């Protein structure tokens, strides 16, 4: 049934899979907005969540992951896209379709430095404004790196 639902939407899918009971599709970054327009028009009106992820070992390191929910038929889809340029990752903003995307994208920008093109106010939200790093990137250390008494190896990490 789930596969059929996705087929009827005719999304511009690059690849898809189903993990732990949820449909997951990979969308090219150019088709990101178009995909959500189709979803929004088909009842997927609740943008549950949007966040980023950093995969330092893959070619394109910055991913954006969104969850949408159709409340009428209770169907969720997870959508992923990959930003092309690692030095300046860019993904189109969903704020035109979902007002709720505003802070979610600001949070993603704040922690991963992913630029959301078309966002009305892409500024830091949880970290202080004068911060220069993007702290959720994998190369950003958890501990203050000027200290050597708290090296990760000492804790078995």
């Amino acid at each position, binding site marked *: 049934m789930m596969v059929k639902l996705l087929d009827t939407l005719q999304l511009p899918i690059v690849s898809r899979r189903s*993990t*732990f009971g*949820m449909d*997951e599709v990979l969308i090219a970054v150019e088709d990101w907005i178009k995909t959500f327009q189709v979803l929004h028009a088909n009842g997927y*009106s*609740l*943008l*549950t*969540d949007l*966040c980023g*992820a*950093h995969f330092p070992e893959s070619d394109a390191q910055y991913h954006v*992951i969104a*969850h949408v929910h159709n*409340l009428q038929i*209770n169907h*969720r889809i*997870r959508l992923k896209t990959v930003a092309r340029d690692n030095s300046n990752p860019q993904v189109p903003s969903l704020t035109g379709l*979902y*007002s*709720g995307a*505003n*802070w*979610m994208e600001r*949070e993603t920008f704040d*922690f991963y430095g992913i630029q959301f093109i078309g966002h009305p106010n892409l500024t*830091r*939200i*949880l*970290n*202080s404004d004068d911060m220069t790093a993007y*702290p*959720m990137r994998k190369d*950003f250390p*958890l501990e203050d790196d000027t200290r050597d008494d708290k090296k*990760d190896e000492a804790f*078995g*990490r």
Partner: protein
Amino acid sequence: MTHSDHLVTVNLGPTHPATHGILQNVIQLDGERIVSAVPTIGYIHRAFEKLAEHRPYYQITPITDRLNYCSSPINNIGWELTVEKLLNVQTSQRIDYMRVIIMELARIADHLICNSILGVDSGAFSGFLYLFQHRELIYEIYEEICGTRLTTNIGRIGGFERDFSDIARQKIQKFLDIFPPALKEFESLFNRNRIFMDRTIGVGAISAERALNYGFTGPNLRATGVDYDVRALTPYSSYSDFDFDIPIGESGDTYDRFMVRNEEMWQSLRIIDQALRRLPAGPYHVDVPEFYLPPKSDVYEYMEALIYHFKIVMGEIPVPVGDVYHSVEGANGELGFYLISDGGRTPFRLHFRRPCFVYYQAFPEMVIGSLLSDAVITMSSLNVIAGELDA
């Protein structure tokens, strides 16, 4: 004369008694009317998502305590359910029912704070005094079950660390006996109170369409008339076994949010009563020795328990690889956990879908054009919890 000449800027927060947490609103006033409101958040950001990438799974439960600290057990159990989904662990009915009892108690504690503080913010202090002592009873139940009160760290991956004691059952029963009259008294003070109704009806209203567009969930969405409840739509932890109604409002204003939360407390009492009466016998934790820490006495006596204890603590047990999203109906809405596992001892990525964070961004839209004092009760009725807002 330009419009901005006579505007007054007011800082509501970060440490203002009306914000009930460390968050700031820079509000511009034209006389008494709000022209713009800019929320500034992040004052208690504690980098939980970063921290979680460096903690083994069982050590993340205490981190989740600090999200919505008014209903920590829901966060704890939500996280445990997420990991159980990743590990494909099926819990017994007894565990599910115990969890349901605790989660519904937490929901009552949360709604009770929200509604009684809404009274305080609108100038009616007495309701707060009547209800607040009953939160103490809930905290005593937590204390009996897990040893702590506010940041509970309740349960474990795979169940509970100990069974409900007789005292715990007595305390829950006592709460079920004592709380309904108090709630009734509270309702009789507020529900048809002319002053309270004038103060809240039509204040901070949002339409169902806008609320959905903003990603509202939970009581705030239901107050607008959308009957979305994770417990009913995607039942987890045997919620489908229980009989309960989903109260909805109509206009999405402060009064409707208040009424929805009040009714949800009654429904939670119904669920707890059913779960307690039908609490099945059985084990209070699942037999997954690879993930459930053995009792300490066993670790000292049995080789196998010692090995598992060591392996769990040192993170030597592989977990499945994949992406998991699991959500529970938190006190404020859909509390989601998005977990990317790479098979290691810590999550590769863990994102908390915090309902507060998502719906608080609608605050400016809800208060622009209203009075400053309306902004205070709107914020109060949204139940913005700084811990959940900032993660």
